[in-house]
C-alpha cells in the first residue's frame, strides 16, 4: 500500500541459541537515510541479518513496503528489493571484480555495470582482479556495487567503513550520501559516529537489542552526556 513505510520492523525477537539478542525491536524507515549506532554486541548486525532472512526471527515482523519479509529465504528477501552490504565485506575471493558484477547485474535496471564503473573508476581498473586481491577500500566499493546492482529499494549496510583508511572512509561517505539522495532507502549500521551523522540526519541508538533512543545528528553531536550514556568511549573515535 502507498502509505506503508519502506521498512517497518515490529516487535522483533531474535535468539542465538539460548541468548536473546533482539528484544522486541521496532523501527520504521522511509527513503530518507537512517543510521543505527550503538556499542559492540548490542545486536546491530543481528538486526541486519534478521532483515535479510539470514537469521530466523522468533517473533515479530519485518515488512518492506507493507510486504512481509520474515520467514522468507534470503534470496527472496533480496529479490523483494533489499540489498545487503555485510560486515567484513565478504566479497567472493574466487571471482574477479567483473564476475561479481555480472553475477548480480541485469540489463535494464537503474544500476548497470557501466554505471558502476562510472561511479567507481577504480573497480573498472581492477576488473580482472580477484576479490581477494583487492584492498579493503576496493572490496568495500565492490560490496556496495554488488548490492546496488540488485536495484534495491532498501540498502542495508553493516559497518561499511570498518577497518578502512580515513581517506577511503571519506570516499565511502560521499558514495553513501549520493545513494541516499537517489531515492534508495538506506539503513546504515555504524560504529563511527562521524560517518553516521554525515550520512543521515536521523539517528537511532541501539542498546541491549532494542532502540534506546531516536534523535538527530546535530543533537547527538552536540550532547556529550548523551553520547557517553549511550555510546561510551567506543563512539568517541
Amino acid at each position, binding site marked *: 500500500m502507498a502509505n506503508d513505510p519502506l521498512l517497518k520492523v515490529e516487535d522483533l525477537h531474535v535468539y542465538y541459541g539460548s541468548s536473546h539478542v533482539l528484544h522486541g525491536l521496532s523501527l520504521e524507515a522511509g527513503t530518507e537515510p537512517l543510521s543505527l549506532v550503538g556499542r559492540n554486541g548490542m545486536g546491530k548486525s543481528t538486526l541486519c541479518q534478521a532483515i*535479510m532472512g*539470514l537469521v530466523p526471527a522468533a517473533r515479530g515482523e519485518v515488512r518492506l513496503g507493507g510486504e512481509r519479509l520474515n520467514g522468507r*529465504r*534470503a*534470496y527472496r*528477501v*533480496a*529479490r523483494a528489493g533489499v540489498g*545487503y552490504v*555485510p560486515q567484513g565485506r*565478504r566479497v*567472493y*575471493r*574466487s*571471482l574477479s571484480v567483473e*564476475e561479481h558484477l*555480472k*553475477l*548480480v547485474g541485469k540489463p535494464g535496471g537503474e544500476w548497470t555495470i557501466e554505471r558502476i564503473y562510472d561511479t567507481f573508476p577504480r573497480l573498472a581498473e581492477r576488473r580482472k582482479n580477484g*576479490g581477494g586481491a583487492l584492498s579493503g577500500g576496493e572490496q568495500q566499493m565492490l560490496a556496495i556495487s*554488488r*548490492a546496488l546492482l*540488485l536495484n534495491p529499494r532498501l540498502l542495508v549496510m553493516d559497518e561499511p567503513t570498518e577497518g578502512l583508511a580515513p581517506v577511503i572512509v571519506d570516499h565511502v561517505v560521499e558514495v553513501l550520501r549520493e545513494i541516499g539522495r537517489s531515492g534508495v532507502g538506506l539503513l546504515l549500521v555504524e560504529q563511527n559516529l562521524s560517518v553516521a551523522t554525515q550520512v543521515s540526519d536521523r539517528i537511532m541508538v541501539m542498546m541491549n537489542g532494542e532502540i534506546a533512543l531516536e534523535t538527530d545528528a546535530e543533537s547527538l553531536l552536540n550532547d556529550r552526556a548523551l553520547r557517553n550514556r549511550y555510546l561510551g568511549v567506543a563512539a568517541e573515535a
Partner: protein
Amino acid sequence: MIETLADINWRLFAIVTLNGLTLASLYFIVASGFSLIFGLMRVVNMAHGSLYLLGAYVGFEVSEATGSWILGILAAGVVVAAAGAALQVSILSWMQGQDLRQALATIGVSIVAADLMLAQWGGSAYQIALPEAVSTFVPVPVAGRYAMARLMLIGFALVIGVALWLILNRTRIGMLIRAGVDDRRMLEAMGVNVPLVFVGVFAIGAGLAGMAGVIGGSVLSVSPGEDARYLLSSLIVVIVGGMGSIPGAAIGALLVAMAETYGLAYTPTYGIVYTFAIMVAVLAVRPQGLLGRAA
C-alpha cells in the same frame, strides 16, 4: 639383491605406470563429483559410492538391452544425476547446514541402497561389454601394447577435467558455484536461489559418479562392495588433494592411484600402506589438503 639401472624391467614399469594412470583417471572422475558436492554444500556424501555402483548397474542393463555402450553411459549419467538430485531434495535439504547429520543420513542411504542393489543384481560380478572398436590393443612405446579401452579411459578423464574447468571458469553456473564455495550465504543474499544451485550441483556430481561406474564396470568389473571401495578412494583422494578443489582431485587421484599401483606391483605386501602413508603425511603437513584452503 640390488637392481642396477640396466636390470630394471622397463616394459613392466611402463605397463604399471599406464595401469596407474588408468586407475587415477577413474578415481578422478569419481572424486571430482564428490569434491564438487563437498566444496559447495559441505556435505560429505557417504552415498557417493552407491551412486557409482548404481551407475554401473544401470549402464550394464541399458547397454545389454540396447547393445550400445554409449547409450549405457548416457543413461547411467542421467539416471544417477536424477537420483542425486532426489537425494538432495528429499533428504539433505531438510538438514541444511547440519554437516554431521547429513553425513550420517547419507551413510543410512548407502546401506539401504547397497541391499536394494544386492537384491536386484545379486552378488556376482558383471562386466559391461565395450564397443568392438575399442576392445583392441594398440602398440605403445616401451610397454609394447596396451588396451585401447584403458587409454580411452585416460582420455575420457582428461575430457571431464577440461570440461569441469570450463564450466567452473567460463559459465554462469560455474560463477555461481565458485561464489557459493566462497560464501554461500552471501550468494543467497544476492538474490540467487541457492537451494536450486545445490540441486543442480548435486546432480552434476552424482552424474559423474554414475558415468564413472559404467567406465569402471567396463574396464574393470561391477560387483557388490565396489560402492565402499570407491567411496573410500574418493575420501582419500579429496583428503590428499583438498576438499572442494577440482585440480586437487586430479593431483590426489594421481598420487593415490600411482602409489597403490606401484605398491601392488613392486612390494605387494605393503601395497595398501602407501596410500595411507600419503594421507597421513598430507594431514600432518597440510591438513587442508595439497590444494585445499584452510577452513
